[in-house]
Structure formats: C-alpha cells, structure tokens
C-alpha cells in the first residue's frame, strides 16, 4: 500500500507538485491521470525515493521514503517512462543486474527470471542483446527488470506509450495479473481507454494538484459526463492542451472545478 501525504516539490521557481495526497491500496490498480507536466512523473520519483519532497511524505507499506529510502525501494518496482536498458547486455544480464541490486543472486534469481520470462512470453529474447529490440520487446525487458525482486508495489510510468496492439494486450494482462496477486499497482497515463479498462481508482492530477480521486464511475457521476474522457477534459479545465506541459505547471491551479462528491486526497 502506498500513501502520499500532502507532498510538495519545487524546482527553482517552478512548482512541480503543489499538494498531492492519495492512497493506493493493495489488490487495486490506481491511475495517476493528468496532462503532460502535471506532476505525475515527479510524484512517482518521490515514491521511489529518487527525489525527496520539500514537504509532506510518501509512505510505502508503512516505510517513509524520506527516512529509509533503501527499505522503501525494496518494496517498489518501477517501470520508468524512459526504459533505459543497457543495449550491449542481453535481456538476462539486464534483469540480473537489477536483481543483484536488490540482493538476489544465484539459483533463486535465475529461477525468478525464468518465471518472469515465461509469464511475459519473452523466452525467445532472453539471451539476446537488447540492441535492436522493438519497443514492445524493450518494454518486456524493463517490466521483467521492475518485477525481478517480487515487489509488493509496482509503479508503471506511461507503460503503453508507443506500443503495438499485441504488446499493449500483453501488458494489460500482466497488470491484471499483478492486481490479482494482491499487489498495489500505480499506473500513470493519459490514455483514457487504458485507464478506464484497467483501473479501480483514478487520481486526476492537474498542475501539481489532485483535481479528483474517485472510481471511474464516481468520476463520471461527479462531473456529470457520460464518458471518462469528457470528465477528464472538464477536470483539467477544458482548454488545457494535452502537451501544455511546463508552463501549466507553474500556474496556480485555476479553472478546473474540484469534482464535487469525489473524495479529495486522504481517505
């Protein structure tokens, strides 16, 4: 379980995260939905302890990422938006490297990798060098790498960006499987269809603030829109361009109505 408690992060004059609070429960898929530059990636970075919040706290399974970042990271698997694979290493070497970082090794690590390669249907590329892999193959390697230490919390940053239909399907199956195993999954995305299909709970982030925190149905009901996309557009203020990015971030949140009825932040 991941609890985010009123975190705030500023880069120079730019406020990346103004005040974000939400809880992602085990056995649920929680979406972080928002336009580019809304603060999704920064939030995920704070969850892994790569970045520290200026104020507030992120707590993973009861462990504060600021006070004991290493312990928190053991409980988290991250699929970053940049896959960042080592192209001169094979799939197995890439995954093994991260497994060893988590203190795994020897036969148990090899067994765990074989298991992951089977589940992700990637045995054919297990011993090939990553150089020249397709986007889909790269995603699988990155996913296996994120899951190698069997984390109870999984963070997926824009997992389906640039993927073909088959790989997207495989990924969705994997996400459902992770949820079925009782893990806490946080998925950042701006693909409405994916969010609607996969997520139990949606946290809409706009300009560094939580604009809504509800189930997909709750969100539709609260905004009075039939489709989730329309609901989202209303929440981000209608005119917020998809790639409005950085300049929107610095601006104080304006124009987007708080979703009435939707729970804001802390449960």
């Amino acid at each position: 379980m991941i609890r985010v408690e009123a975190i705030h992060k500023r880069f120079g004059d730019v406020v990346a995260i103004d005040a974000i609070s939400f809880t992602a429960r085990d056995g649920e898929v929680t979406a972080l939905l928002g336009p580019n530059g809304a603060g999704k990636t920064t939030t995920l970075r704070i969850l892994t302890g790569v970045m520290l919040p200026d104020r507030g706290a992120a707590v993973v399974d009861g462990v504060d990422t600021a006070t004991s970042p290493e312990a928190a990271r053991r409980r988290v698997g991250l699929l970053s938006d940049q896959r960042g694979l080592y192209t001169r290493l094979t799939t197995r070497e890439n995954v093994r490297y991260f497994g060893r970082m988590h203190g795994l090794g020897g036969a148990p690590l090899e067994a765990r990798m074989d298991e992951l390669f089977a589940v992700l249907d990637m045995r054919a590329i297990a011993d090939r060098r990553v150089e020249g892999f397709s986007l889909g193959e790269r995603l699988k390697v990155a996913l296996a790498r994120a899951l190698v230490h069997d984390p109870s919390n999984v963070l997926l940053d824009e997992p389906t960006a640039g993927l073909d239909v088959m790989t997207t399907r495989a990924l969705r199956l994997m996400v459902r499987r992770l949820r079925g195993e009782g893990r806490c999954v946080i998925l950042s995305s701006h693909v409405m269809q994916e969010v609607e299909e996969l997520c139990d709970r949606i946290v809409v982030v706009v300009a560094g603030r939580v604009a809504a925190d509800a189930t997909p149905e709750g969100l539709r009901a609260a905004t009075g829109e039939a489709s989730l996309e329309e609901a989202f557009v209303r929440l981000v203020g209608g005119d917020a361009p998809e790639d409005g990015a950085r300049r929107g971030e610095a601006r104080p949140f304006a124009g987007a109505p708080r979703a009435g009825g939707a729970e804001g932040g802390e449960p």
Partner: protein
Amino acid sequence: MTHPALVVLHKEIVDALRDRRAFALAMVYALLGPLFLIPILRVTADSLNRRENAPVVVAMDGAAHAPSLVGYLREHAIEVKPFSGDPFAEVKSGREDVVVVVTPEYAAELREGHAAVVRVVTDTSRGTAGPMVRRVARQVELYGRVIGQMRLLARGIDPQAASGLALEIDDVATPSSSGAILLSGLPMFLLLAVFAGGAHVAIDVTAGERERGSMEPLFATPLTVRQLALGKLGAVIVFSAATLLVSDVAFSLVISLAPPPQIAGMRLELGPMVALRIFAGTAPLVLPVAALQILVASRSKTVKEAQTATMLLLMIPMLPGVALALSPFAATNLTMLVPSLAQAQLITSSLRGAPLEGAHLAIAVASTTALGALLTLVATSRRAWDKVVAAR
C-alpha cells in the same frame, strides 16, 4: 550477497568490453607511443647518422698547395673539389656552402715551422652550412694537431708536454637529441595511456548512462549513490590501469626487439624489471585520474560536454613532459609531491637505470594516493551526482 559496488563494477566492465569503440580507443592510446615514437626515432637518428658520416664535397681554393691536407680530408670522408674565383662572393650568393682557402704561402709556412693559415669561408646562417663547416673545421684542426705533434717529436719533445689539457670533444648531437625525445616522450605517452585508457568508460558510465535514461530505474533500487559511483570508478580504474600496462609492455617489447639508437654514455634499456618498475611507479596515478574523470563527466550535462571536459584533462600528462623537455630539472622531494610530474620523473629515472630512490617513490605514492582518495570522496558524493540522478 555481493556488494552492490562490485555488481556495478562487474556490469560496467562487461558493458565496456563489448563497446568496441571504447576498447579500440583505449588500445590506440596504449600503442600510440610504442608503435610511432620508436620507429620515428629510428628514422630520424638513421638519417642524422647518414648525414654525419656521408662523404661531403668541399670546394678548396689552392688545393694544389696542400696535397697532404687534401689526402687527410679524403681519408675522413671529405672530398675536395678545385675552386677558383672569389670565395666570399660565391658563399654569399649561396652557390657554395663552404670554401676552404689555402694560400700559396702554405707549403712554405709549414716547412718553416710556422702555423700555416687555412681559411674557411662560410655562411652559418644557412642551415646546410653549419654541420659541414663543423666537420671540415674539425678535420683541419685535427690535421694541424697531427703536424704539431710531429714537429715536437722531431725536436725530441714528448708531444704530450705541449698540451696541458687533453680536450676531447665528442659530438653527441644525434644520440642525445634522440635520447631527449625518448626520455621525455616515453613518460608522456605512458601518462597519456593512464588518462586516455579510462576516459571513454568514464564518460559512458556517467553522462552516457544518463542520456540513455537508465539512471532513474537504477536509483529506484536500494543502490546508493556512493555504491554506484564506486563501482563505476572501479571500472575506469581497471581500464586505465590495463591501458598503462599494455603501453608499458609494448614499449618494453619494441625497445627490446628493436633497440633505438644508443644514447651517449648510457644504454637505454626497458627490460621486464624496468617495465615493472615503471608500472609500479606510475600505477598510483590511476586513482586520482579516474576519480577526476568520473567527477568531471558526472558533472557534465551531456556526453558531448563530458568529452570536451575530458579532452581538456588530457593536457595534464602533456605538461610535465613538455616542461621536462624544455628544461630538464632534477627529481627532488618537492617535485615528487606533484602527481603526474612525479610519475614522469620516476619513469625517466627508471629509463636511465638510476638506482631507485626509496624516499622519492614513497613521497610520490603518498601524495598521489592522498589526492586520489580526496578526489574519490568528492567524486562519489551524492552532491557530485545530483545532475546525473535528478535531471534527464
């Protein structure tokens, strides 16, 4: 469980060994010196030697008056061609480099026991004239000395009584210049190997990894910045030290198999023991250099920026080499405090076959290691890696 820094070290070495460009580059720097310095030296020395001993033809006005002088010169590889005209005009115009003038009184002056005048007209501002006039003048003078000694003998005096001093000039121009090239060039190339051997790795594991976006997932593991930095530093050290070793061994092989021209008064040897001594003396430099490269590369925003900065670092090994070539100064306890300069001097003294100065070596190792430790602390600090960790 393996220490995370060792996991990083192992991965980076495997990764770098598969990076053909990095590997080739390190090898080029390692073999640059042995493959080019020694052959160039040989060619230069050979051509100089040839010039020194090649027969030259010198114009002589009045050769008919001094047949024995002509004979003496011919014995010493100086051919004489007859000359008539104005020697000053001919030399000034550049048609002749050197004209030897023997006056008609020459023979008479010799007979009467006077010093016969032999005039040499030349223009030393012309590069070609200098070596030739030196050769001719020297032989003329030697011939004069021979005559003088014969005169003393004829009067029953030991010729040695006439010379209070026995001045012996050995022209060492060729060997000492090639020796200077070798003695300052070899340390420079070996230091260059230390700097260049790990440079590509240092850039690739810092700015390169950051550009490829693999830092972020890495820092989502329990790995700490210091562990990561230590592992990466280790990989740079391995490549830098390996390049130094390859370069050292290659120099040793090339010099042993094809000895360069002898240096007057000393034989240049680079056998296994000297090679070992050079490696031991130079190896401590690997630590500060690797730490400095990691520090500079991790502070750079892009690979390009890191390359520029690392290239500037390559100036460091050049400095002591250039300084020593311009004005050789002796190794003292003070110079041993300066990393890079200390190693250059240790290499030079190893090459000279000078006995190993324990104090010098100890000071050099201590000061270089201290600097290395300090740079390592800085290069593996969280602050130094801020840019790599946070930004993309």
